[in-house]
């Protein structure tokens, strides 16, 4: 993909946490791009740095976390070094965010209508009447039944799935070019999950919105994403078209990760078939091994992996950071 076509471009992004016992590098030089209308899945286990990557893009890192290097470009313009007042015009206007827990993303003291109207008035030049019309339209679009009566309800009067729809409506209200969705379906039951995923997909398709979908759930990625980035210990282990990453993973970590996911019906008839497992656990940030950070758990470790850190190289349709493909 040429840089000109990318809506979001992240280059060598580095996020650090200075602590008394030294600096922890939580995101270590990652680069990726998202095109308009594309859904990029970012998948990884807890502590892989996927949420921090999303937070760094909209600059919502909790101090002492900070961006220590790299560039973030939105439609060609650098946004990682903007002063706070300019950044606030981008957040909500050009970048929308959806977080895991819909209850904490909504203010319990205001009706959902007030929150949406307020956001619209902040970002767009419209009258309050137009803003309310727009809010109604958004609630209808995200699939809330009878929006005319629901718009004046408070967040606690909505169920979990409905609340997450309100949060999505809120993220959409200024027609952002990019949506960062951090575990948007994790708190929801499977039947509601399917509804929310279809909604996100449709929005990306119809509005040409780029979506960065952060989740630990490979099933959600498989259904929603066009491309997927697999993160491990703050780095991208592999990135490529979703079908390729799932069916023909290149990096040994991705291979292990895919094997360890129980698949519906796969164990059927073969009672108590074992799952493939990756020995050990992801290293803590203060104990990331030298060379390839996956090397202590890797079944195909070579001598070189313990000394030199692999860069992303092209392996077929995917890019992977592994010496096997050098």
């Amino acid at each position: 993909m040429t840089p000109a076509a990318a809506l979001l471009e992240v280059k060598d992004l580095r996020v650090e946490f200075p602590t008394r016992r030294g600096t922890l590098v939580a995101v270590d030089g990652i680069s990726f791009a998202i095109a308009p209308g594309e859904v990029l899945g970012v998948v990884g286990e807890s502590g892989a740095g996927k949420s921090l990557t999303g937070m760094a893009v909209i600059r919502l890192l909790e101090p002492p976390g900070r961006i220590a290097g790299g560039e973030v470009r939105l439609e060609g313009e650098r946004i990682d070094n903007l002063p706070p007042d300019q950044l606030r015009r981008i957040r909500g206007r050009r970048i929308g965010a959806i977080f895991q827990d819909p209850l904490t993303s909504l203010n319990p003291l205001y009706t959902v209508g007030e929150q949406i109207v307020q956001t619209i008035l902040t970002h767009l030049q419209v009258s309050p009447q137009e803003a309310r019309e727009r809010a109604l339209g958004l609630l209808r679009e995200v699939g809330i039944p009878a929006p005319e009566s629901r718009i004046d309800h408070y967040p606690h009067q909505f169920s979990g799935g409905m609340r997450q729809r309100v949060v999505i409506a809120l993220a959409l209200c200024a027609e952002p070019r990019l949506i960062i969705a951090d575990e948007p379906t994790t708190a929801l039951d499977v039947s509601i999950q399917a509804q929310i995923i279809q909604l996100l997909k449709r929005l990306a398709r119809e509005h040409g919105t780029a979506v960065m979908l952060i989740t630990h759930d490979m099933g959600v990625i498989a259904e929603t994403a066009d491309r997927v980035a697999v993160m491990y210990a703050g780095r991208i282990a592999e990135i490529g078209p979703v079908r390729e990453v799932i069916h023909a993973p290149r990096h040994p970590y991705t291979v292990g990760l895919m094997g360890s996911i129980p698949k519906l019906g796969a164990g059927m008839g073969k009672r108590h078939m074992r799952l493939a497992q990756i020995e050990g656990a992801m290293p803590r940030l203060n104990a990331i091994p030298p060379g390839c950070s996956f090397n202590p758990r890797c079944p195909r470790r070579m001598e070189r992996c313990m000394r030199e850190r692999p860069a992303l190289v092209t392996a077929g349709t995917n890019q992977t950071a592994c010496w096997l493909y050098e």
Partner: protein
Amino acid sequence: MSDALLKLQEVGRDFDVSRPWLNRVLEGLPRQRLRAVDSVSLDVRRGETIALVGESGCGKSTVARLIVGLWQPSRGRIEFDGVEISNPATRAATSQVRRRMQMIFQDPYASLNPRWRVREVVAEPLRVLGLASDEAAIDRRVAELLRQVGLAAEDAEKYPHEFSGGQRQRISIARALSANPEFLVCDEPTSALDVSVQAQILNLMTDLQEKLGLTYLFISHNLAVVSHIADRIGVMYLGRLVEVAPAEDLFSRPQHPYTRMLLDAVPDLEMSGKQRTPVAGEVPNPLSPPSGCAFHPRCPHANDRCRMKRPASVVSGTATVACHAVQEGRI
């Protein structure tokens, strides 16, 4: 059935969720009872893994807690190896039976006392039940248990915070095994863990079952995990058991419309291009469950009978299903 280790007969449990007395008097509100579990009948056979699945609030964890005796059932009867264990009056007399079952909890961060060393955590059942004669025997047993779950004997001297989530869950399993149980109730044992760690724990549980001849009741909301580990599966909806079937049959020929809906909603990792069928609606408020069949407001096959009369569980093929449409052959 003679090989049933555990028998639940029409078990129900209500919770009083009324407002405080003063509010009821001033605002004229009635008492409110939440029917968390409603007439659940189930047999667990020796040596099998039976799973209970369902969405949040369907009562599956309540069933687990009723079985191990953390709560008392409001109605019905629970038998373990032929002895009734649900009657509080005979609790002392049945303690010998009840110690043969143990429980593993969902959150390994909350279920281990942070002030205790792992040794104390794992040894507690041994001390409480008087299963070890002296300290040296306790030490030996703790070391053996830790090795059995894939930890090192030296880990006994550490505190829970020194372990990752997966390792903590191994400690919980070691604690549950210390009393030599035959039956383990596992309430979402892997849902707080990452997938690669989940695979390690599921493999460990499978190995232990083969080695020790354990029987598992496995509670989960994740159908893929359940399809991997269970021999039989029970599907719960709003406190009721709507279908019980052997795992293969449940996945290849789901009968109850709710089971079909759950299966359709599972993300498709194979990317066969199959569209997930999103289900309309959400789980109703359990305080005012729908009349008749609790699933009828979301069911595509509901008719007047479904709205009026609650379906009984009836054997249909290899499964037991509570659905009028299945019984009438409409679907």
